[in-house]
């Protein structure tokens, strides 16, 4: 609209799109009234009350009258309400009842039925009265009757659906009146139907239903024209319809409403754009050259078919009609309109977040630009769309768009981008073989072009060209010594459809030295790195988007770092192996189309393979390298060069490394078994790791002999020589020469990085006997050697270390090696008594895992007293001793004169491993020395229990008498001379304390259970003690124990410092220690009772001390006796206590 045109204050709208009204019945009649009707109908404005609370409008109604046809009625299910008639009018001039009955009624009925069948309720019957006609007939009935009849027959309750138009063609006031009434009715009905149907249409618009198939209501007009040029015309119709609907919506909505309804209207915009585009293509408007004559003819036809613009819009500046006409008129105008529409559509889609739709329209636009030879403008749309498809992983659209992009890039001369896109397309399985070959050839053609700049490289990512599938090391542990040869075999899967000749394939290697890490030591590398040498590379997940949700899973591993020396745990933790995958930036991963800044790493270390032809599919490529500097080599990049085109895999992942090590020559000596046993020949393994040293002829190991360890030279010694990888081996003779001080082992000749292994037998001489003293209860042999002895608690074997110093040919320093030998036996001894007869028992316990054969056991008195005799009671000279078992030996002690207070003994026994039949050398016997003191019996204790007088047996619950008889067996001896001994009138006496304890609680001791007696020190001196005890149980009961202690007078030094409790503590300890070898050791309970009894007596006084008599000095002659106790009569009472 022109800005100068003044706005109309009461806005009255005309209809741009005329509603269709069908006409049935008398067509001639209608034709006669049509001019007046069409002229008169829009004359009066009507108030249009609209739905949804919109303000009423004044409008001029117009109509497009068409002949009634059943096809015009909307079909079932088709909701295209607006495309079809709003009102159906039946015209008739019948005034004759007969005629009415004969034809008109029938015709009306048919018409009504058709309408009913399509549930159309908007209809009207017009009866035209013609005075002239009436006059011609004489027998006419009153006109009302025919109107009434029709109303009666068809109108049912809607009598207003039948109107009378009187003399429409006359020019009288009656005619005018009749016309006015008719027109008002017509307008009202039309508006009613219009409002109703528009309401439905608007509802449909909201739900987006059928939006494109229901354009405005004026389409029929255009449609008629279009029949002549079918495809283009339909597009024109759709285009115009869309724009008209949109314009109409714009006309009745404000900006905010329009914006909020974009989601519903944008479809029409898109549809119109699409149609304009196809019209443009049809009319040759989208090309570089412009339309040809055929195109022009077609355009002219189309434009002619459009006809003249409707008068209502003819004078507006912009109308869909004008827009279309203009757009088809010239290439430039088309471009302008098409771009306007496209941009508007894209903008609208974008604004409501329909990015995919926007990209799709953008792709059409790109296509348009490509046709117009403007690839620079097309690129951004193609890139945008492609990025979207890649991000969401839509393979077919990716391929299609990429193909378009390739063409675009080719036109733009973006060589690198084009080659990259080509390589992607050449590997794309969605394309045909021919297409793939074409793109592959494009790359090869470029690569073979002689470059003007010879050093120039085009670097492209490798992924699309070929993929690294797996890698295999030889040696498989990927560890090689300096100078060694390493092979790396890779499998490359070529994605190209044809074989490609590659000038060279290069692996860029990063070198690092980690000297401080023990993981990089030769020992660690050669032992711990035990992979199978095949590394698989995960295949590219090409079709799937690299979206935020499909990040690779965390690869977590436990990590333990152990000390190399003793394998103890230094550190532990969890390592994420693919941090770089997880933490990389998201953007960089998506765009493959861009030259992704693949940088060639320049490095000194390269693995190279030249002139390889990569066949489609898997290819094996082998790299060979000789290891030079020790360190860790990491494979970083893989490049394949085809002419000036370099395909680069910027990061090889998972990380692939190989290690080159250099090793110092080393000697290891270790026992073959878990531990070495002393006394028997044991095998020791010598391992010489040559490292970088080459063993020459004459090189030998010089072992300085240890005093107590022999190296047993065997006639035939062989050594094994291995390569470091243990792949090859050979064996060689070993020459061993022994002199007094030195044993020399000449090594076989071996190259560098080899291992020589051999075994030697060594023998640790049994230690000299230990002197068992007062503390010999544990009976441990204590080898008095200069070596450090380790004595562990429990049943561990006693060990002895022997140090050997070895001179190696590669070093001026001696290597000192410590070998630890374990003594396989543990020996204990015990003194046994029978009255005054004495026996010595020696127990040999085998702690080792081996079985031995014992032979030639001897026990000798080292003091060599003549009157002492040791009579063996052991019969067998040979005796096996099994692993973890014990063997006992017993000797009787016999003497003629007074026995010595102590006895020094040495036990020796020959032993040899039971498994070995014959030993090459004679073995030294095992010895054990010990001392026995106070072995002579001084006292005899005898206890007896008697039933109460008058009874035959003891009974439970009744008191019995316990008689204890203590008898001195000898006169005064050396051992008696102690604090307890008192002398009066040449008579010696000593103080003893007795104690009756029943550990098994069989007896209740009544009254005092202990007492101090003064014992004359003379043979046959006897002391008798009487006590009362009560048996608690029936049966054969063992007698209670009677214990005898030496009662020492208090010592001033002791008593002043110790209180009663600590005295008890102190004493109980001494009791414990000395009473250990008694058959049944005293329980805490019984001891407690003794001491509480004693302590109550001596409370507050200086405490005397108790000393248990050495086991050998007291003999209990009643031990083991039992007394029969029978149950008492009332023993049947059962006590039940209920709490």
């Amino acid at each position, binding site marked *: 609209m022109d800005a100068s045109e003044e706005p109309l204050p009461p806005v009255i709208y005309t209809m741009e799109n005329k509603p269709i009204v069908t006409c049935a019945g008398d067509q001639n009649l209608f034709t006669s009234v049509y001019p007046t009707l069409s002229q008169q109908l829009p004359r009066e404005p009507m108030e249009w009350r609209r739905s949804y609370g919109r303000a009423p409008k004044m409008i001029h109604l117009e109509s497009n009258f068409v002949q009634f046809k059943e096809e015009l009625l909307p079909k079932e299910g088709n909701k295209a309400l607006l*495309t079809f008639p709003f009102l159906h009018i039946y015209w008739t001039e019948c005034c004759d009842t007969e005629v009415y009955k004969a034809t008109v009624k029938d015709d009306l009925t048919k018409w009504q039925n058709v309408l009913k069948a399509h549930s159309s309720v908007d209809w009207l019957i017009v009866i035209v009265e013609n005075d002239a006609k009436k006059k011609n007939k004489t027998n006419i009935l009153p006109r009302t009757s025919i109107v009434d009849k029709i109303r009666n027959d068809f109108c049912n309750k809607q009598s207003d659906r039948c109107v009378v138009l009187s003399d429409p063609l006359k020019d009288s006031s009656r005619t005018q009146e009749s016309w006015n009434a008719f027109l008002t009715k017509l307008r009202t009905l039309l508006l009613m139907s219009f409002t109703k149907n528009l309401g439905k249409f608007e509802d449909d618009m909201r739900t987006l239903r059928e939006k494109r198939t229901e354009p405005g209501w004026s389409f029929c007009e255009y449609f008629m024209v279009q*029949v002549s040029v079918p*495809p283009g015309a339909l597009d024109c119709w759709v285009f115009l319809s869309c724009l008209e609907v949109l314009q109409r919506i714009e006309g009745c909505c404000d900006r905010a409403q329009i914006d909020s309804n974009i989601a519903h209207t944008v479809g029409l915009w898109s*549809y119109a754009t699409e149609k304009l585009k196809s019209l443009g293509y049809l009319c040759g408007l989208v090309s570089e050259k412009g339309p040809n004559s055929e195109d022009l003819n077609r355009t002219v036809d189309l434009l002619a078919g459009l006809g003249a613009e409707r008068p209502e819009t003819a004078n507006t500046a912009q109308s869909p009609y004008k827009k279309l006409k203009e757009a088809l008129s010239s290439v430039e105008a088309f471009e302008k309109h098409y771009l306007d529409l496209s941009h508007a559509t894209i903008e609208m889609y974008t604004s409501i977040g329909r990015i995919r739709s926007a990209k799709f329209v953008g792709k059409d636009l790109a296509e348009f630009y490509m046709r117009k030879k403007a690839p620079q403008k097309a690129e951004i749309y193609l890139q945008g769309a492609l990025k979207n498809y890649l991000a969401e992983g839509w393979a077919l659209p990716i391929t299609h768009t990429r193909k378009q992009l390739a063409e675009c890039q080719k036109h733009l001369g973006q060589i690198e981008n084009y080659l990259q896109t080509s390589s992607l397309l050449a590997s794309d399985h969605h394309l045909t073989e021919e297409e793939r070959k074409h793109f592959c050839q494009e790359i090869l053609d470029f690569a073979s072009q002689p470059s003007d700049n010879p050093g120039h490289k085009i670097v492209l990512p490798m992924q699309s060209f070929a993929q690294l599938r797996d890698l295999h090391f030889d040696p498989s542990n990927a560890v090689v010594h300096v100078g060694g040869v390493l092979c790396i075999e890779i499998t490359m899967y070529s994605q190209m459809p044809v074989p490609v000749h590659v000038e060279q394939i290069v692996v860029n290697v990063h070198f690092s030295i980690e000297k401080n890490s023990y993981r990089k030591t030769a020992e660690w590398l050669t032992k711990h790195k035990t992979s199978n040498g095949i590394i698989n590379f995960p295949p590219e997940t090409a079709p799937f988007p690299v979206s935020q949700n499909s990040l690779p899973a965390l690869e977590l591993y436990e990590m333990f770092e152990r000390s190399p020396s003793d394998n103890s745990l230094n550190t532990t933790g969890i390592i994420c192996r693919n941090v770089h995958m997880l933490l990389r930036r998201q953007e960089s991963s998506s765009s493959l189309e861009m030259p992704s800044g693949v940088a060639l790493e320049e490095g000194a270390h390269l693995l190279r393979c030249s002139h390889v032809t990569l066949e489609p599919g898997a290819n094996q490529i082998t790299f060979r390298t000789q290891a030079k500097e020790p360190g860790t080599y990491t494979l970083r990049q893989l490049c394949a060069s085809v002419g000036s085109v370099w395909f680069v895999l910027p990061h090889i992942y998972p990380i692939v490394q190989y290690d080159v090590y250099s090793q110092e020559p080393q000697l290891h000596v270790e026992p073959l078994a878990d531990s070495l046993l002393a006394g028997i020949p044991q095998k020791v393994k010598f391992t010489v790791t040559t490292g970088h040293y080459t063993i020459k002829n004459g090189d030998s190991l010089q072992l300085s002999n240890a005093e107590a360890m022999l190296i047993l030279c065997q006639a035939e010694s062989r050594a094994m020589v291995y390569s470091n990888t243990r792949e090859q081996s050979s064996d060689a003779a070993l020459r061993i020469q022994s002199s007094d001080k030195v044993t020399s082992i000449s090594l076989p000749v071996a190259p560098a990085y080899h291992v020589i292994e051999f075994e030697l037998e060594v023998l640790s001489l049994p230690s000299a006997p230990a002197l068992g003293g007062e503390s010999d209860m544990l009976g441990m042999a204590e080898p008095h050697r200069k070596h450090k002895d380790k004595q562990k608690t429990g049943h561990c074997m006693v060990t002895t270390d022997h140090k050997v110093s070895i001179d190696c040919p590669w070093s001026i320093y001696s290597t000192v090696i410590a070998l630890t030998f374990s003594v396989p036996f543990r020996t204990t001894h015990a003194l046994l008594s029978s009255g005054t007869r004495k026996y010595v028992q020696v127990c040999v316990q085998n702690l080792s895992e081996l079985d031995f054969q014992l032979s030639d056991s001897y026990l000798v008195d080292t003091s060599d007293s003549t009157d002492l005799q040791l009579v063996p009671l052991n019969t067998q000279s040979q005796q096996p001793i099994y692993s973890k078992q014990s063997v006992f030996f017993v000797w009787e002690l016999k003497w003629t004169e007074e026995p010595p207070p102590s006895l020094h003994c040495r036990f020796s026994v020959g032993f040899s491993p039971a498994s070995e039949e014959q030993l090459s050398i004679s073995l030294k016997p095992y010895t054990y020395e010990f001392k026995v003191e106070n072995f002579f019996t001084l006292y005899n204790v005898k206890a007896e229990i008697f039933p109460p007088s008058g009874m035959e047996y003891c009974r439970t619950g009744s008191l019995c008498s316990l008689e204890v008889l203590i008898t001195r067996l000898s006169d005064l001896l050396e051992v008696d001379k102690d604090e307890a001994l008192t002398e009066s009138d040449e008579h010696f006496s000593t103080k003893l304390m007795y104690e009756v304890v029943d550990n098994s609680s069989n007896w209740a001791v009544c009254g005092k259970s202990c007492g101090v007696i003064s014992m004359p020190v003379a043979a046959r001196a006897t002391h008798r003690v009487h006590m009362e005890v009560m048996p608690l149980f029936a049966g054969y009961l063992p007698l209670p124990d009677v214990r005898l202690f030496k009662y020492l007078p208090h010592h001033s030094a002791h008593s002043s410092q110790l209180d009663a409790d600590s005295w008890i503590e102190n004493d109980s300890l001494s009791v414990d220690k000395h009473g250990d070898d008694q058959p049944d050791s005293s329980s805490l309970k019984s001891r407690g009772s003794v001491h509480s009894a004693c302590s109550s007596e001596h409370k507050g006084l200086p405490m005397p001390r108790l000393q248990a008599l050495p086991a050998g000095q007291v003999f209990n002659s009643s031990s083991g006796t039992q007394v029969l106790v029978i149950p008492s009569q009332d023993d049947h009472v059962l006590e039940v206590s209920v709490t």
Partner: protein
Amino acid sequence: MPLIPSLWESKANRSLEFSCLRPALGAGAGSCVTSGGSRDAARAGPPKLAVCIAVIAKENYPFYIRSTPTENELKFHYMVHTSLDVVDEKISAMAKALVDQRELYLDLLYPTEDYKVYGYVTNSKVKFVMVVDSSNTALRDNEIRSMFRKLHNSYTDVMCNPFYNPGDCIQSRAFDNMVTSMMIQVC
């Protein structure tokens, strides 16, 4: 009074001729969504069902997409992909509704000149998109719903397969057969 011919007749003529004008994809400049050339040929066949069925992951990449082999596959890929815009819109509008009141069936996503695109979304945001010929007026809302339900059930069966790797493309024969049964039988 000009006479108005039947809409369908003229549309039939148009599309036949128009298909000749449409450049092929191979030429590199084809417009893909304009019109289906073989539409009318298919009309004569057995009762029509869907012409394209797609299962789309939560992340919007296709798990499964199949269209009638007679038609341009690419066109349907674009169509289904574009329809995800409307699916997203509907899902986000639906997100406000209570969980138990949520409707899985998304109704008509949008119509094109020749097709209607329907949508359905599972609770795990896997989308089903079905393209139906718009001339197929026999196919009512209820049929579409039940087809989606069948599809959903079959999809659930696929997911229950312990050998199926979640996130992979669907390559189940049972699912394939089910989809085939829903698609137009080409004579």
